[in-house]
């Protein structure tokens, strides 16, 4: 049994050390906000935080996160009050919504490191998170709005 901490809660999971975190989160723990997109770290839908750093959970083995704090979209806030979540709702950003948890988790890392991102900063930071619906302009506006509202 492997002990891991997800969203500040302790879990014991019965999985092979090589099991990818996407499946640990979704199948073992039941946190299904993190999505399977491409499975090869190319699209970003599965982005989570490990010790505050963005990680593509579809390529991150369970063995690499032991003793570290994992945060998923469910743990960003308990009540949808994170500035990014509020900006996302206010801006009606999502279309189909499938990639949006990855978008928000990536944006959260951006705002943690850069309180006032420029358009170029946002483009660069979000270049690896793909949205098939093409909601990029709304994503960018929401990130800027969250930055103004104290995103972190």
């Amino acid at each position, binding site marked *: 049994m492997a002990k891991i901490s997800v969203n500040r809660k302790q879990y014991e999971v019965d999985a092979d050390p090589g099991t990818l975190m996407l499946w640990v989160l979704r199948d073992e723990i039941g946190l299904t906000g993190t999505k399977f997109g491409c499975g*090869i770290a190319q699209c970003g839908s599965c982005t989570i935080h490990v010790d505050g*750093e*963005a990680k593509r959970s579809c*390529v991150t083995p369970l063995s690499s996160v032991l003793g570290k704090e994992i945060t998923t979209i469910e743990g960003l806030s308990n009540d949808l009050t994170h500035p990014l979540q509020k900006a996302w709702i206010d801006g009606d950003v999502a279309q189909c919504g499938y990639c949006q948890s990855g978008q928000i988790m990536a944006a959260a890392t*951006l705002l943690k*490191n850069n309180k006032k991102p420029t358009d170029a900063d946002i483009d660069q930071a979000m*270049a*690896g998170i793909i949205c098939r619906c093409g909601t990029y302009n709304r994503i960018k506006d929401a990130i800027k709005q969250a930055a103004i509202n104290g995103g972190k």
Partner: protein
Amino acid sequence: MNRSSALKLIFIAAAFAGASLAFYSSRIGRLERVEASTINETTIAAGSDPAKSRAAFSESVKVFFSARCSNCHPGGDGPTQGDTMTPHSMEIKRGPDGRGIGEQKCTTCHQDINLDGDGLPPGAPNWHMPGEANKMAFQGISAGQLCRNLKDPLKNGGRKSAKDAVHHIATDPLVLWAWTPGNGRTTPPMSHADFIKKMNEWVDNGAACPE
């Protein structure tokens, strides 16, 4: 000259000879120390052969210029990828410490092990590239320039000598990954053992550089 005067003369002569010997020895010692600290690598090895050194470097430089090594040693701000050395997708930048920026860290995707499967990101311990201050570029320069850079701490990652640079090349797991990249990726055009043999030959013969 009486016996007492003769003894005095012998004593004075012996003292002078001893002092001279001590002075001469200290000069030699000092010269040797100075020589050891300032000597150029092109003359350090007894029996060094600059032509042989240059030949060894010219043969091994193709490893540095191969995609597996050059992709993470670009001249610009972002890594390249694949055998064609195209700019890394996702607009990845090296960042100040060579570990990426913000959401786009190297280890956001690259693990410390290779993942087995088509299209999966390669991995090795401490996956990163040179930082902004000391880019250690292999791309876009000549063999001679690369050779001189390897000896320059300002351009070789702060390593004090060519020997230290070769030590990094011989032992760093991230460098060694290039010879076991997995998933059908091409390897450098020379075995790691042969490469290090040639690099040592380069150093042992004076670390001479082609033009």
